[in-house]
C-alpha cells in the first residue's frame, strides 16, 4: 500500500484511457471438495497460478476463501471472453491440483462468517480492525466492470447516467439467494451486506471532475478516506485506470455470463456517450434506493420507477427495451450476438438466482448448491485435462 496521505492532487488526475474499452474483476469462492464449504487456500492457489504464465491477473481478496481475477483491457465481448476462459482454465487447473473447487455466484450458500480468516496483508488487517465483523461478513462475491473514459468529466457524466441502470445490473447478475444457510428471499442478498458499510452508497451529485475532486479532498481533509478505494460506492470513477467502475454485479455462475454482463455495460456506455440521451438528474438518486431494493429483492420481476418518465415498469420490460435501443451500439462493438443471447435469457426469465433455487428444489441440499456452483464455473465439472508434470 502506498502512502496515501502523501498523495498529491496530481496523482488523482484522471488518466485518459481509450474510450469504451472494457475490463472486469471477478471475485470467486474457493471451496473444499469434501462438503463444499468455503476453504482457505487462497495463498496456495495464487502461489501455484503465479508459477504458470497466464493472461490477466489473479489476486487475493479480503478473506482467505476468496480470489479475484482481473482481465486485461479489452475492446469488446469476444476477446474478453477468450481471455476470461483462458484465465479460468489456469485457475481450474491449479485448483484441481490443490483439490479445491472454484465457484461463481454472489454468495456462498451456507458458510459461517465467523469461520472466515482475513488474508494477511496490511490493508485487509486494517479493514478488519476498522470494520470488525463486517470485514468477515464481506466474504461475498461481486464482479466489477470497468469502462474506459477519455477524461474525468466524461466519467462523471457516465457514472450519473449509469446510476439509472443500476437495477438492471443487479437483476441481470443476481445470484446470491442463499446466505448463512438460509434462503434470503432476495435474488441478490449480497448487496444488503455492502449497504452496512458507512462509505457505501452513491457518488455525490457533482457535474465535473473538478467538483468531484473538491469533494474527495474535503473528505480526505476530514480524515474520513485516504484513497478512492475507501468509497464502497455502487459506481465510482477510478482515475488511475481512467475508468468508471460498476460494482453492483453479483459474480455470475459462469465466465460466459461475466462477459455478457460486461458487453451489456459496454454497449450501454457507448449508447450513453454517443447519443447523450439524458442529462444527469437528481431524482435518479431520490428513487435510487427504492429501485435498487426492487432489483435485489425480486430480480427481473422487480418494479422500478423511471426517474426520467415517472413510469412504473418491471425490470424485465425495462431491460428488454434498453437492449432494443442499444442494439446498434452493441453491433458496432461486436457485442451483438452476446446481447441477443442475454435478451433471450431475460425474455425467458432465466437468472442465476432462479437457477440456484431450482437446484435446491431438486436436491434439497445447500451443499449441492455450492457444488453445482463450482461445477458450473469450472466448466460443467469437467476436470482440467492438461496434466503435464510441472517444471521445477
Amino acid at each position: 500500500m502506498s502512502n496515501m496521505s502523501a498523495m498529491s492532487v496530481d496523482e488523482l488526475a484522471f488518466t485518459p484511457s481509450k474510450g469504451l474499452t472494457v475490463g472486469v474483476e471477478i471475485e470467486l469462492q474457493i471451496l473444499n471438495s469434501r462438503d463444499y464449504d468455503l476453504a482457505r487456500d487462497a495463498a496456495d492457489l495464487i502461489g501455484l497460478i503465479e508459477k504458470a504464465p497466464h493472461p490477466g491477473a489473479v489476486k487475493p481478496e479480503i478473506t482467505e476463501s476468496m480470489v479475484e481475477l482481473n482481465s486485461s483491457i479489452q475492446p469488446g465481448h469476444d476477446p474478453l471472453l477468450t481471455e476470461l476462459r483462458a484465465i479460468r482454465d489456469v485457475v481450474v487447473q491449479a485448483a484441481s491440483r490443490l483439490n479445491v473447487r472454484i465457484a461463481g455466484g454472489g454468495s456462498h450458500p451456507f458458510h459461517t462468517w465467523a469461520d472466515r480468516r482475513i488474508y494477511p496483508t496490511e490493508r485487509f488487517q486494517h479493514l478488519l480492525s476498522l470494520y470488525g465483523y463486517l470485514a468477515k461478513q464481506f466474504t461475498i462475491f461481486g464482479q466489477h466492470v470497468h469502462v474506459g473514459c477519455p477524461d474525468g468529466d466524461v466519467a462523471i457524466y457516465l457514472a450519473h447516467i449509469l446510476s439509472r441502470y443500476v437495477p438492471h445490473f443487479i437483476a441481470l447478475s443476481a445470484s446470491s439467494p442463499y446466505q448463512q444457510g438460509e434462503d434470503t428471499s432476495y435474488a441478490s442478498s449480497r448487496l444488503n451486506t455492502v449497504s452496512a458499510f458507512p462509505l457505501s452508497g452513491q457518488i455525490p451529485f457533482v457535474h465535473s471532475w473538478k467538483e468531484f475532486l473538491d469533494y474527495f479532498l474535503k473528505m480526505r481533509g476530514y480524515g474520513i478516506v485516504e484513497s478512492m478505494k475507501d468509497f464502497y460506492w455502487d459506481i465510482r470513477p477510478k482515475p488511475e485506470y481512467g475508468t468508471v467502475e460498476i460494482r453492483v454485479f453479483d459474480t455470475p455462475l459462469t465466465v460466459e455470463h461475466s462477459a455478457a454482463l460486461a458487453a451489456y455495460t459496454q454497449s450501454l456506455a457507448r449508447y450513453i456517450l454517443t447519443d447523450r440521451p439524458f442529462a444527469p438528474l437528481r431524482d435518479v438518486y431520490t428513487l435510487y434506493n427504492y429501485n435498487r431494493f426492487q432489483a435485489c429483492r425480486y430480480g427481473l420481476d422487480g418494479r422500478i420507477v423511471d426517474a426520467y418518465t415517472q413510469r412504473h415498469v418491471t425490470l424485465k420490460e425495462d431491460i428488454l427495451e434498453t437492449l432494443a435501443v442499444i442494439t446498434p451500439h452493441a453491433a458496432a462493438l461486436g457485442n451483438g450476438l452476446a446481447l441477443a443471447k442475454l435478451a433471450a435469457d431475460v425474455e425467458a426469465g432465466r437468472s442465476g438466482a432462479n437457477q440456484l433455487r431450482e437446484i435446491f428444489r431438486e436436491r434439497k441440499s445447500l451443499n449441492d448448491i455450492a457444488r453445482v456452483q463450482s461445477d458450473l464455473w469450472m466448466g460443467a465439472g469437467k476436470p482440467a485435462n492438461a496434466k503435464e508434470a510441472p517444471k521445477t
Partner: protein
Amino acid sequence: MTTFLPQYPFPPNPVLLFGLLLLAGVVGGELVKRALNLPRIVGYVLIGLLLGASGSNLLDAGLVGESWIFVEIALGLVLFELGRRLHFKWLRNDPWLLATGLLESTLAFGFLYVTLTYFGVQPIYAAVAAAIGVSTSPAVVLLVAQELKAEGQVTERALNLTALNSVVAFVLTTMLVSWIHHEYQAGWATVALHPLYLLGGSLVLGFAASVVAIVLSRWLGQRAERQFALLLALIVLTIGAARMLELSVLLALLALGVFSRNLDTRHDVMTVDLSGIGQIFYVVLFVVSGAKLHVVELMMGGGLALAYVAARLAGKLIGVMSLSHLSGVRPGTALMLGVALTPMSGLALAMVHGTADLYPEFGARLSAIVLSAVLILELIGPVAVQFALKRAGEARDAA
C-alpha cells in the same frame, strides 16, 4: 446377609468401564491442555498410563481386553473419516501427491527394516515392525486437526498421505502374514489363502457396505440427521461383520470410507459430521492405548525404540521433502507436512494386536519392538502435529 445388595468385589460391566474411561480421559485431557497447553490427546494417553499397567493397574489386562471393542469402534470411525478424505480425483489431478505417499512409505519401511536388522532383530520381526511403522496414526492427525480447527493444504495432504500410508501398511502387514504362517509351519493353503482372504474379504465387505450406504442415502435424500444415523449404523455393522468374519476391521472401514466417497458419482452421500460422536470414542481409544503400554518394560527396549523412531522419521521426512515441491505446496510447508506424519498410535497397536491373535509368541516379541516406539510417538506425535499445523498457519487463531 441381605441378598439384594451387590457383593464385593463389584463385578464391572462394559458400560461402567466406558464411562470411567471417558471421564478419566476428559479430565486428563483438560488438565494437560490447561497446565501445559499440549494437545488433549497427550492427556488422554497420560491418564491411561496412570490407570494402566504402568501405573495403578486399575485397568489391568482383563479390562483392557474388555474395552478393546471401543478401540475398534473408535478406529473404525477414524478410518471411515480418513477413507472419505482419500479422493481418487485428487490423486489423478496431482499425481505427485500419490508419488509422495508411496515414496515416504517405501523409505520409512526400508529405513526401519535396515535399522532393525542392523540391531540384530530377526528379519521377519523387522519386516513386520517396519510395515507397521509405515502407517501414521490417523486418529492423532484427525483429532489434532479437529481440535485446532485446522484447514489448508498441509492439513488435507497430511490426512491423505496418512490414508495412503495406512493402506500401504495394511497391505504390507497382511502380505507378511503369509511369511509368519510359513515360519510357524502352517499348511500351504493357509500361507497362500489367509492374506488373500484378509485383503480381499475386507475390501469386499467395505465395498458392499458402501453400496448400501449410497443406495440408502439416495433413498433417504439429502438430510444430514437421517444420513448420520445411516452411516453410523453401517459403520458399526461393518465393524461387527468384520469381527464375525475374522477380517480386518481397519481395512474394511477404510474401504467403506473410500468407496462411499469415490463411487458416489451422483453425490448422494452427504459429508456428515461424525466428529461429535467420534470424539467420545477417540478419548476412550487414547486412554486404552495408554493403559496398554508397560512403561518400565518398554524402557528396556529404549535404545532400539529411539533408533526405530529416528529411522521412521528420517524415511518420512526425506520422502515427503523430496517430492512435495513438485505438487504445488507452498515452499516451507513440505517440512511441516513431513512432521505432521510423525504420530503412531492406536492403529499400530491394532496391527500388533491383529498379528498377536494369530501366534501369541510372535505377537509378544513384535510388541516389544513396536510398542516402545508407540509409547514415545504417542506422546510426541500429537505435539508434532500441533506444531506442524500451527507453523503452517492452518490452525484457527484461537485454538
